[in-house]
């Protein structure tokens, strides 16, 4: 069990991490600030008002060193929620460990690194899809060779669902993304059994109890079948779909926030009955702000109660054989197959992204969902029914605007003190490599070592890769 954390500067988050580790947590989960997520430096025009707000602000290796200061990276497992610039943050992590004296093969953790769902749902891409894919495959290849205990992509349905998809769409689009990574890695010449066991999934747990648990069952079936039959995987670990689940943030209400505790319990239960390997239970103040300590604790307790008191985790797939569960699982599998067919017809996942296929499906589904609530066809207790308006009295966690100044000062200091000639030289080398077809990880690591900032590395790659503008539909 680990909780998603990151706010303010690296030093502030480091304090929190040390606190969590002292209190028995064995894994860390890093949330990054939006400017880091998009690969901008803290003093970029776009970072205005964002620095440290939604996660920890990272500009250079220095910040990463501070983030894990006095934390032994060979002893913990770290999960990093980062996508477009994932290769850079992974490089920073590996170099930080290197400086602590640990070789990469000791490192354990996960990096989200799922760019396809960015175009589909989360919207934090940087480069065009093809170039992004290259970076993803670079990390898969690099980790397969040097960081074998690392989970390279966390293929995420969570965001797709939160953006407004239905359960079936979540199932279908996520698996389609997964297969796209498998195909791209195989095209690179990797052996499917070498990398597939290090792919994992990340699903949403929404309100409809049976639909959710059947979704996970269908996902496992589809994955295993395709991996075996279509991609020729032989190892059982390649066929096994490992997944993490997070309860649906979007289902939680700002009205009567305590009700959310009950929602999260039911959602978490569905995930456990559906066989999830790990679970994140959302905090009841989700719709209000970044979670407060009290809310986080209740969320953690909720999953502990499910895991330790209810006994539901004692049996594998305890609902197998139920008429309703089996038929619903079958139906969802069929509906997902129909989507695979459509995606195939459009030429695959990337062409379908460019044709706005997923985006349209999701926008339509989310508008429908909203209308159902308003027409009272979908009851949201405390919002459109049994409503009891009250002023929000939950104490909120706020990040002050000073953080931005502190972070920018740090960044300026580094710019002054590093060897700027070396930085330039390494960036130039990276640029040349990007123009070719080599794996970019070693080049990125070289720039990181010289304290090149994430913004500089991304700008260099933009010169070669270009950027991507969404054809936003609405």
């Amino acid at each position, binding site marked *: 069990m680990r909780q998603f954390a990151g706010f303010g500067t690296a030093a502030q988050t480091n304090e929190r991490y040390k606190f969590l580790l002292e209190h028995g947590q064995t894994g860390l989960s890093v949330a990054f600030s939006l400017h880091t997520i998009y690969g901008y430096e803290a003093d970029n025009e776009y970072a205005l008002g*964002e620095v440290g707000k939604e996660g920890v602000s990272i500009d250079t290796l220095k910040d990463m060193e501070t983030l894990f200061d006095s934390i032994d990276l060979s002893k913990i497992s770290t999960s990093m929620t980062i996508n477009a610039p994932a290769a850079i943050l992974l490089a920073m992590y590996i170099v930080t460990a290197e400086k602590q004296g640990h070789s990469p093969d000791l490192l354990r953790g996960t990096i989200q690194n799922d760019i396809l769902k960015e175009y589909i749902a989360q919207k934090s891409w940087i480069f065009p899809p093809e170039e992004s894919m290259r970076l993803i495959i670079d990390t898969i290849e690099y980790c397969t060779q040097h960081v074998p205990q690392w989970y390279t992509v966390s293929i995420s349905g969570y965001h797709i669902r939160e953006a407004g998809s239905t359960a079936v769409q979540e199932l279908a689009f996520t698996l389609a993304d997964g297969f796209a990574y498998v195909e791209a890695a195989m095209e690179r010449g990797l052996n499917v059994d070498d990398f597939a066991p290090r792919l994992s999934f990340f699903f949403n747990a929404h309100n409809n109890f049976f639909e959710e648990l059947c979704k996970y069952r269908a996902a496992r079936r589809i994955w295993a079948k395709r991996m075996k039959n279509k991609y020729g995987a032989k190892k059982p670990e390649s066929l096994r779909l490992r997944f993490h689940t997070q309860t649906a943030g979007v289902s939680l209400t*700002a009205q009567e926030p305590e009700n959310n505790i009950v929602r999260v319990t039911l959602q978490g239960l569905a995930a456990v009955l559906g066989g999830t390997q790990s679970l994140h239970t959302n905090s009841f103040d989700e719709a209000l702000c970044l979670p407060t300590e009290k809310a986080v604790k209740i969320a953690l307790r909720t999953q502990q109660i499910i895991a330790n008191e209810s006994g539901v985790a004692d049996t594998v797939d305890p609902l197998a054989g139920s008429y309703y569960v089996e038929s619903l699982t079958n139906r969802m599998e069929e509906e997902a197959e129909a989507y695979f067919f459509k995606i195939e017809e459009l030429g695959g996942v990337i062409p379908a992204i460019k044709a706005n296929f997923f985006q349209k499906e999701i926008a339509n589904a989310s508008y429908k969902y909203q209308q159902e609530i308003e027409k009272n066809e979908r009851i949201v207790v405390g919002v459109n029914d049994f409503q009891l308006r009250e002023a929000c009295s939950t104490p909120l966690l706020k990040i002050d605007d000073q953080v931005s100044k502190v972070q920018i000062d740090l960044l300026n200091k580094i710019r002054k003190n590093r060897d700027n000639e070396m930085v330039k030289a390494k960036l130039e080398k990276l640029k040349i490599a990007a123009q070719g077809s080599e794996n970019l990880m070693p080049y990125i690591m070289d720039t990181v070592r010289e304290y090149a900032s994430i913004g500089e590395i991304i700008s260099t790659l933009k010169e070669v890769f270009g950027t991507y503008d969404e054809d936003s539909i609405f």
Partner: protein
Amino acid sequence: MSENRRIKVLVCKPGLDGHDRGAKVIARALRDAGMEVIYTGIHQTPDDVVNTVIQEDPDAVILSILSGAHNALCPMIMEKLKEKDIDDVLVAVGGIIPDEDKPFLEKHGLKGFQGPGTELKEIVEFVKTNLKR
């Protein structure tokens, strides 16, 4: 002089915030209520927003911000609008806006502040009743 007047609304996502589900839903709801709606897409800088307001001349601007950057971005947008003498446009912000930030934003001339769970018809009504021209 409103022989054929339609309410024109700009729906914007300022800053790096990628939470566009709400903005898109609002855009559609306003359209279905008979308004002419422009959605700018994500990643709008304050200058982008102001430029679009100048050229499109909307009656209302809906800023949807869930990232927490409202206190930095909104006053800047308001200031730039003021510089251009634009004072007859309703500018509203909503999304995730903590109660304690409202007075500050109000002082800068912003309205709205609706958050999760707001009914779409409430937003339509809000726009209709708060227009400045």
